[in-house]
């Protein structure tokens, strides 16, 4: 299995744990303040099992990440993040290694899974508002033949811009939606998490 996928998942897990309190705080403004805690419990379980995870194939690895998250995290985040990793794993199927061409299809399938389970789309003030444009930037940079670290950096910049752009939006999904107009003027926690994760992976790739 390629080391890259392991490196990216590891960076995501470490970053989520580092940002647990920050993510919960963001969710506390108009949500219920559990986002950081929930998702951290998932990646904590991933790290706890880290050495035992089947690494024979990248697809199996990603599916195992998914099931660890689904067994540890409830509700929106457990289901959506679990779905995302499951979908990415399914795209890889039994391939031996991930190549640059696999990246965008994996992300696209993950996005489709989130949209379907979450009954949500661009403009609902969710993590999709950062994730979808970031994947668009990823695709563009890949097509332009940029280097790995350039690709990641461009995606991270877009993720951050679009996370900031959730501020004026009205939440239409998740617990924040119950507060109606009040959600206007606040950042979506999931979208900010996307920005933080893209930035972390981009930074780690350079180091």
């Amino acid at each position, binding site marked *: 299995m390629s080391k890259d996928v392991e490196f990216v998942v590891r960076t995501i897990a470490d970053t989520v744990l580092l940002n647990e309190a920050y993510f919960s705080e963001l969710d506390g403004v108009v949500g*219920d303040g559990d986002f950081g805690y*929930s998702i951290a419990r998932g990646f904590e379980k991933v790290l706890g099992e880290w050495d035992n995870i089947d690494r024979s194939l990248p697809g199996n690895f990603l599916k195992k990440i998914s099931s660890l998250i689904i067994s*540890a995290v409830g509700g929106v985040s457990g289901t959506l993040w679990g779905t995302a990793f499951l979908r990415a794993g399914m795209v890889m199927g039994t391939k031996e290694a991930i190549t640059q061409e696999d990246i965008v299809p994996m992300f696209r399938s993950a996005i489709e899974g989130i949209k379907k389970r979450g009954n949500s789309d661009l403009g609902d003030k969710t993590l999709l508002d950062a994730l979808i444009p970031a994947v668009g930037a990823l695709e563009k940079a890949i097509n332009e033949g940029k280097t790995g670290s350039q690709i990641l950096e461009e995606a991270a910049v877009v993720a951050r811009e679009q996370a900031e752009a959730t501020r004026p939006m009205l939440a239409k999904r998740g617990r924040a939606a119950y507060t109606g107009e009040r959600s206007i003027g606040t950042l979506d926690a999931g979208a900010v998490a996307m920005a933080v994760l893209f930035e972390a992976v981009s930074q780690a790739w350079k180091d």
Partner: protein
Amino acid sequence: MKRFVNDPKDFVPEMLKGIALANPKTLKYIPEYNLIMRTDIPMDNKVSIMQGSGSGHEPAHVMTVGKGMLDAACPGNVFAAPPADFVYNTTKLESSPMGVLHLLNNYTGDTMSFEMGREMAEAEGIEVRTVTINDDVAVKDSLYTIGRRGVAGNFFVMKAVGAASEQGKNLAELEAIGNHVVANVRTMGMSLTGCTPPAKGSPIFTLAEDEMEMGIGIHGEPGRKRVKLAPANAIVDELFEAVSSDLPYKAGDEVALMINGMGGTPISELYILYAHAHELCEKKGLKIKRNYVGEYCTSLEMAGFSLTLLKLDPELEALLAAPAEIAIRVF
């Protein structure tokens, strides 16, 4: 915020352990799935009933497991829906030939976990039906949300289907009874303070000494508006108006009236609120056949309450009056 806690991450499991230790004959605890279940189920001649939802709403739902109410509850962390995995495994453990009824409070997270868990169970041939509870009139049904939230009205659903399942009613009948309760129950809540999830350690929101929040949820979600603190009776007036003007209540109806404490409000104050709500019912011509004053569905240590009306018919009234044996007596 100070509370009785060891490691905050152990908050839920330690509470569940306490419940099991206190009820060794009737309840068992399966730590893997945060599961509290009756020791005597599944039974061949009885549908099993379960509820998930987040922790932090106690006595709902882990303390209402017992003969005549729930057969199992598998809560998530504080204010977090249970993982789909818990829903699936609990459904499997309590699966009866007569089927399993899922009671679901209408929130996105819970809905997602219960849908995924149900699909996994059905794939193994277990028959499952779901009653979705959405009694909160504070949230306007709109395109933007998944609709009204499920709050303290869930107690009446649990009680009615729990009693009916002991009478041997089948899965379709229980689903119909549950939906009948949902169609006839309405709630609205408010709070004087926020609340602090143990793992977060700081309040989800704070209210000034002269403020209160109307239309609050049960997860510390802020409500629809923040207004100046008012006398007890004026607060009851507002909630009663919102609840009773929503269908289906009209003069002459027989009702159950519930004043549900949110966790930090003493029972003395709940009875002060009840006194006024009782009088408003009488003024509107609603006949109170059953009343409930206490804590049923809480938000940790939040000071606040909700007011619930349930329109009764003789069948429903009999189900509410049926005996039940649960860890904490709330009826």
